[in-house]
């Protein structure tokens, strides 16, 4: 019995969602066994990683029984039926705690489920838990969570990135075969790069935002995080839908994303923005990115550098727009209808203010205040409208680029994952780390990160592929072809925790062997360089 379970955990921890789904359809593994394996892996990994805010073992087990019946009677035939999934804790799940990793929602059990999650459930997905994140998705490290930091499975002294750090780390650790994340300024693509997993942010409007707790509504998109490109395509195909309940939902008829899983990039035109390779980019990251470009070139793609322009202006424009929208969106948290209410107050306004001041963390308050300021009369034109005009220019720059190129290739972040505690002390420095991802959100484009190498510290690097609006298929094709050329990508943490979960090791090791110590100054040094490079242009 025990040996069987051990084998099962070892098997499932390394499987992609589609592989697991296939085994479930072929009755080699039951939905219940898949859930048990996931829960065992979670139990082994969570003490060292903290990827989840909530694990719902009971709910998942009950659901597995129902799903298995539906598979057995032929009602559920899809590729994700019976496969466990982790959902970022900013997507509403009926009856299941949804906190946005904030004290202000510490007890919030939604009375409805987000449309994207419903789409997954209709396809037979089994939610095993809600993943940790930066509070209200504001952050790049998953350190601003009110429920503790999440650690990077490749080396637990490092952050997993953010804000979808819990989702990415959970996939990298084999706790779930796939997860949903959300991306407002890079929150799927950057942590995917830091955790060595594959993540996709769709074109704005492709996946319904109904039930996604809003941060920057004009930028937010839900997307898949998984072990490979095929999974991402299949998951996106499942969650994409037109939804009347989301006023910016787009009616698309081209959501057969798996049809783009073709190993052929002959003649595909790929541009690398020269600015993306300029000062501030870690040399090891640059080497890995250019090697990925070479793989695509060797398969027949035309790759060249070009001048995208305006790259550094995306960050200030983004922080004005995102903070403005956040200040408006987060005004709903007032301690009246749900969530945290302060215990001591004098009158209604004092109750609002105290509930919010005690309920929100520092980074969230910082952005609410900045947002309130840039929207206030007297500053609205100078800051908010100026940022929207900059956004228009950035969109035009991408439009020009996509007249010449099918896909834009670059890094997802200037460095590999920084150490815990290195980022939060200096917010602007942290914001600068978003330089390669943020403009994609401003322009509404689809973007994807695929693992492409390692640095000398043993931390993964991801290559980012960006497409024009509605051109997911082009980046999926390029990503798939690259993946075939790159070869298999191992997730050592997943196997390590599986051995621990199966009883082979008593405890999940705190850090992966041979990856700690030495070479520790590298990261901080590079980050400093990056700030001074940007300061030269922008004048901090």
């Amino acid at each position, binding site marked *: 019995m025990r040996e069987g379970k051990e084998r099962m955990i070892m098997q499932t921890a390394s499987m992609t969602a589609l592989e697991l789904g296939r085994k479930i359809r072929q009755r080699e593994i039951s939905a219940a066994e898949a859930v048990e394996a996931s829960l065992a892996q979670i139990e082994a990994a969570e003490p060292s990683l903290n990827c989840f805010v909530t694990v719902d073992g009971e709910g998942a087990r009950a659901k597995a029984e129902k799903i298995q019946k539906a598979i057995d009677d032929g009602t559920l035939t899809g590729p994700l039926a019976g496969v466990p999934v982790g959902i970022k804790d900013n997507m509403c799940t009926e009856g299941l705690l949804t906190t946005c990793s904030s004290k202000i929602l510490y*007890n*919030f*059990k939604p*009375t409805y489920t987000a449309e994207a999650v419903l789409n997954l459930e209709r396809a037979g997905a089994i939610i095993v838990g809600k993943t940790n994140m930066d509070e209200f998705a504001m952050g790049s490290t998953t350190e601003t969570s009110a429920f503790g930091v999440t650690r990077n499975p490749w080396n637990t002294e490092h952050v997993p990135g953010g804000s979808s750090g819990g989702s990415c780390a959970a996939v990298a650790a084999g706790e779930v075969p796939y997860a949903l994340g959300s991306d407002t300024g890079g929150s799927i693509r950057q942590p995917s790069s830091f955790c060595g997993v594959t993540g996709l942010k769709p074109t*704005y409007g492709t996946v319904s935002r109904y039930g996604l707790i809003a941060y920057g509504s*004009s930028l937010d998109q839900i997307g898949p995080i998984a072990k490979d490109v095929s999974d991402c395509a299949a998951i996106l195909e499942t969650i994409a839908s037109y939804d*009347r309940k989301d*006023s*910016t939902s787009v009616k698309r008829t081209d959501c057969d994303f798996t049809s783009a899983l073709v190993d052929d990039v002959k003649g595909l035109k790929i541009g690398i923005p020269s600015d993306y390779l300029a000062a501030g980019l870690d040399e090891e990251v640059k080497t890995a990115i250019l090697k990925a470009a070479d793989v695509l070139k060797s398969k027949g793609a035309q790759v060249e550098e070009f001048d995208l322009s*305006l790259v*550094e*202006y995306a960050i*200030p424009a983004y*922080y*004005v727009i995102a903070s403005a929208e956040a*200040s408006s969106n987060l005004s709903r948290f*007032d*301690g*009246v*209808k*749900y*969530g945290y*209410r302060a215990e001591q*107050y004098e*009158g*209604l306004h*004092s*109750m*609002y*203010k105290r509930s*919010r*001041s005690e309920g*929100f963390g520092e980074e969230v*308050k*910082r952005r*609410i*205040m*900045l*947002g*309130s*300021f840039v929207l*206030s009369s007297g500053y609205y034109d100078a*800051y908010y*409208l*100026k*940022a*929207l*005009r900059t*956004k*228009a*220019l950035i969109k035009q720059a991408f439009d020009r680029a996509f007249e010449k190129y099918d896909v834009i290739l670059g890094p997802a972040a200037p460095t590999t994952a920084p150490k815990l505690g290195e980022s939060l002390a200096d*917010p*602007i420095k942290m914001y600068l780390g978003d330089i390669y991802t943020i403009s994609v959100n401003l*322009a*509404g484009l689809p973007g994807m990160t695929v693992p492409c190498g390692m640095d000398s510290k043993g931390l993964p690097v991801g290559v980012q592929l960006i497409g024009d*609006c509605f051109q997911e298929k082009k980046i999926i094709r390029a990503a798939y072809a690259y993946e075939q050329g790159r070869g298999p990508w191992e997730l050592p943490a997943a196997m390590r925790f599986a051995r621990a979960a199966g009883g082979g090791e008593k405890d999940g090791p705190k850090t992966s062997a041979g990856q700690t110590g030495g070479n520790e100054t590298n990261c901080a040094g590079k980050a400093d360089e990056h700030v001074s490079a940007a300061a030269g*242009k*922008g*004048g*901090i």
Partner: protein
Amino acid sequence: MANIISDETMEYVGILAKLELSDEQKEQAKKDMARMLDYIDMLNELDTSGVEPMSHVFPVNNVFREDEVTNGDERETILKNAPAKKDGSFMVPKTVE
């Protein structure tokens, strides 16, 4: 540092943001915001005259529909997460004397 946030501005932002800060937090917030605005001022290098502010990436038009009720009485559901409730309503501190 070009931008200096005055106490009055900070007070006003606190009112707009519905946040209550200690004196120490206010000082920190003033510094943080000034530094962020200095950084954001980089946008002034760009000539945006004649550029329309872009709020949506795609052309978005208002979509009309018939005003028909599609949901039922959800009072119980809606009150489920209320921090305080009374007689089927949310309970808040007294607002009128």
